[in-house]
């Protein structure tokens, strides 16, 4: 089980530059679906990689699904060499995405995200129209129901704005 509250608190208080995407972003916008992991797009600046590596180090980050004992060193250099990491941690599953299909990286997405207040901390979340756009770009059949819910949410929010 993923402790979303702790993970968000950890990333925010560690001053990691990231944007919530995926299922958690959908939850923030009001979606009702269950999601198992936290997906974030993180800034690839060197300072941010250092902050991200230091923040997660105490929580045993490891490649999800990889055989135990695989040589995996968790540090900024590993983050620098890779791009997208699907991790398991002692706080739960965390996907660190350097880029996402149809959206690009942190710098491309930051102008399509907004700061949100979560459990007393501020972090950025991908805006609903952009979330819909990247889900459409991914083109995965399993996202069709998700997309339907997100588009319905957008319609509901627009309806509320008109009241």
């Amino acid at each position, binding site marked *: *089980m*993923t*402790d*979303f*509250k702790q993970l*968000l608190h950890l990333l925010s208080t560690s001053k990691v530059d990231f944007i919530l995407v995926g299922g*958690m972003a959908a*939850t*923030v916008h*009001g*979606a*009702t679906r*269950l*999601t*198992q992991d936290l997906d974030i797009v993180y800034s690839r600046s060197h300072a941010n990689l250092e902050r991200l590596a230091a923040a997660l180090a105490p929580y045993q980050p490891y490649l999800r699904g990889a055989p135990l004992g695989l040589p995996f060193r968790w540090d900024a250099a590993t983050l620098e060499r890779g791009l997208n990491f699907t991790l398991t941690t002692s706080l739960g599953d965390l996907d660190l995405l350097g880029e996402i299909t*149809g*959206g*690009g990286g942190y710098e*491309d*997405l930051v102008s*399509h995200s907004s700061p*949100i*207040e*979560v*459990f007393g901390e501020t972090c950025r979340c991908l*805006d609903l*129209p*952009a979330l*819909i*756009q*990247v889900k*459409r770009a991914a083109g995965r059949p399993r996202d*069709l*129901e998700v*997309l*339907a*819910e997100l*588009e*319905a*949410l957008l319609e*509901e*929010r627009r309806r*509320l704005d008109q009241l």
Partner: protein
Amino acid sequence: MPDPDQPLPPDPVVELYKQGVDRTLLRQNLRRSVDERILNLMDLQRLAEELRRAGQRSRDHRR
């Protein structure tokens, strides 16, 4: 990325799926704060995990 505020043309498959969306749940959720939405998700996750464990126990018991 293209401007997300420019509406995409409707996807007929998504439009079909949209008919099955329970909007009463969405409206209820929109009345909640972001913190409440995340806490609800964590409750749901705990419930799903408990049900999974109960299913496993039941299968083990039958063996």
